[in-house]
């Protein structure tokens, strides 16, 4: 079995390659482009297959059903999956990262036992944080929760919630005190998406995918036992949740970008593409190639530091990694559009998350510079928290 070989890198990689070579032959590994149902069933299939070999939630501690896979071995796993062209676990982003980050630190024993084991069985979680008037300024959120006996009654609207149309549960931020300073009146909940009063409407993104959605909450009753942390202490809990949006997840995405760029170059060489003979474009490619390698280095360094327990320097590097990584993905996509020429303008209707279409790559990169803390927010954080420049 794969997990028995983790102490020997060559054997571990060998076992992963053997397994991937086998499992990725299944038709489910390649969902029909543009078909949402096919995507969701492919994602559930992939989680089930990973779970069969103990790789459902391998990065979690053993006590919560993981195998406590070391960071080094998580990175190797990500590298091998990307190398084999295997799917991401995008549908389970919140399930695998945000939910455990929150519950490990702030959850009750009952919440941990109740919710964590479901993840490796394919339970999908989404995030109900942003609102139409609370995006970058998340703490100004207004979704209202009022205590009513052993329940809270929630009314309001959430937005930019990825995959919420497929989600079984949500992590939810609400306001329970409208008089307190904005950071002090927020409460964190776990919401069963089947609760009456929950309505989800998908939104189509600029890149053509309907990945995120709006969530409307009308008199939704949440039991007090599904509150995480104390009432009005939800902001601190949410910071733990959001801090998980980094590490191996972005590393894997960056590795996919590297293969994407490498394949783009390889195909250009094979087809003797005109841009290779264009001095400006060829040199620009070499610059992007350098920057991507720099980004890989800083990500690997950061993961290593964080595994050791982090450091002030490492914490200071986090917003740079988000800024560098997302701006670079956007720039690579934009470069591919110009290098490809007029053909890049052709709309290819059937695509999915892993599409290599240049405009899709660019637009998805652009989305990355907005989501999970826009580039502007990263520049605020860098200047204020890393460079210690005063608030304006």
């Amino acid at each position: 079995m794969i997990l028995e070989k983790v102490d020997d890198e060559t054997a571990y990689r060998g076992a992963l390659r053997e397994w991937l070579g086998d499992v990725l032959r299944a038709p489910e590994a390649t969902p029909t482009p543009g078909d949402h149902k096919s995507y969701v069933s492919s994602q559930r299939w992939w989680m089930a297959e990973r779970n069969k070999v103990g790789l459902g939630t391998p990065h979690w501690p053993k006590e919560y059903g993981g195998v406590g896979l070391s960071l080094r071995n998580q990175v190797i796993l990500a590298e091998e999956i990307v190398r084999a062209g295997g799917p991401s676990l995008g549908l389970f982003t919140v399930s695998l990262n945000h939910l455990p980050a929150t519950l490990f630190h702030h959850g009750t024993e009952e919440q941990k036992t109740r919710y964590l084991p479901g993840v490796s069985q394919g339970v999908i979680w989404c995030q109900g944080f942003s609102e139409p008037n609370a995006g970058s300024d998340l703490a100004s959120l207004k979704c209202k929760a009022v205590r009513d006996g052993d329940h809270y009654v929630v009314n309001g609207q959430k937005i930019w919630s990825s995959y919420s149309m497929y989600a079984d549960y949500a992590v939810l931020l609400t306001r329970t005190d409208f008089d307190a300073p904005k950071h002090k009146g927020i409460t964190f909940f776990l919401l069963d998406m089947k609760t009456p009063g929950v309505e989800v409407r998908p939104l189509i993104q600029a890149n053509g995918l309907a990945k995120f959605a709006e969530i409307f909450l009308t008199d939704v009753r949440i039991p007090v036992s599904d509150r995480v942390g104390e009432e009005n202490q939800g902001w601190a809990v949410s910071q733990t949740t959001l801090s998980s949006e980094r590490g191996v997840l972005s590393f894997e995405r960056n590795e996919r970008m590297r293969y994407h760029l490498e394949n783009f170059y390889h195909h250009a060489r094979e087809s003797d593409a005109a841009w290779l003979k264009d001095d400006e474009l060829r040199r620009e490619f070499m610059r992007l190639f350098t920057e991507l390698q720099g980004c890989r280095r800083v990500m690997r360094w950061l993961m290593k530091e964080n595994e050791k327990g982090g450091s002030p320097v490492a914490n200071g590097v986090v917003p740079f990694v988000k800024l560098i990584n997302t701006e670079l993905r956007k720039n690579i996509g934009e470069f591919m559009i110009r290098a490809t020429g007029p053909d890049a303008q052709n709309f290819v209707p059937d695509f999915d998350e892993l599409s290599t279409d240049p405009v899709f790559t660019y637009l998805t990169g652009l989305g990355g510079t907005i989501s999970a803390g826009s580039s502007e927010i990263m520049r605020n954080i860098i200047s204020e928290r890393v460079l210690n420049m005063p608030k304006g």
Partner: protein
Amino acid sequence: MSLETWEEDLPALAEGISEVLVEECDPRSVHTFFDGGNDLDKALWARAAELGFLGIGLSEEFGGLGFGARGLDVLYRTLGRAMAPGAFVPTLAAAQWLEQVGPEDLNASLLPEVVAGERTFAVPFALDGEGVALNDGRLGGTTPLMLTSRDATTAVLSVKREGAAAFALVDLAGVGFVANDIWDHTRLVGRYTLDNAEPLAVIDDVDGTAAATLRSNVALGIAGDCVGGARAIADQTIEYLKQREQFGRLLASMQALKHRCAELMRAVLEGEQALDQGVEATALGNPAAHMWASLAKALAAEKFFFVADDCLQLHGGVGFTWEFDAHIFLKRALLNRELSGNNAFHRDLAARHLAEADLAGVSTAELTT
């Protein structure tokens, strides 16, 4: 903050070098040197020799400290932060190159002299042209443009011997030199006039390895200077914005300027990461090391210029004065873009390397470490 290159046993040494430069290469001394008012270049050189820094990259058998490319990188970055003048990059890059490509007996005689501060090298400004013809074992005429220092003892010249590429080491005692009057007064660039000079040694370079190695060594030195300089002027500028008030508030509290500062630091970090890759590939003997050195030089020089230019602007009027540091960093950035070959030249070299690797079926994953 530099990342992996500093993680091993170098930090203490780096700290020591940095302390010496803070003390002996302070901005006031650099400005005085810039205006021809002191011998900072020679003083720093003598001090570095005394403390053993000149042997940081060389093996112990030649009296060095054995830190190789990583050690040199630490020194170059620190010198770049301090806008240091002197023979460091041409001499240490050439000395390291001799250890890599030179004959054992030559190295045994020359390299200990480098460590002792007695031998300094001049190297080609950019190794991008034809070599000088070697006739009957002798060299005459004006050399191509060289990166050198006052009292340099030995020139490393690209030559042709019976049509084949080689390098000649030429003693510079009594040789005529015409300096270019360049904007960056912290460095020395010019041409030597040789009169039937007999080289100390000639090193054949049939397959171009010696040229590529020398070019990479100088490129890594210049890149180190770039990332050191970029971080220094960026730090200094951000501190300045924290002191300077206009419109009744600190400039550092204005979001438009804060976002620019975030971008400055991003550029600094990107330059450092590219150089870390170049240095690591060189230190580990990665077959793609020359490619990464070229890419590191191009990116580091580009980022240094971006940072130095914007830092001068962020200082406003005082930034535009001769008395402030900003113009010296900017002029070093301008010269660095050209030294060891400009950024386009280096990217074209790297592109050829990548194309060869792709043709040979090597993936970029295998080119990285």
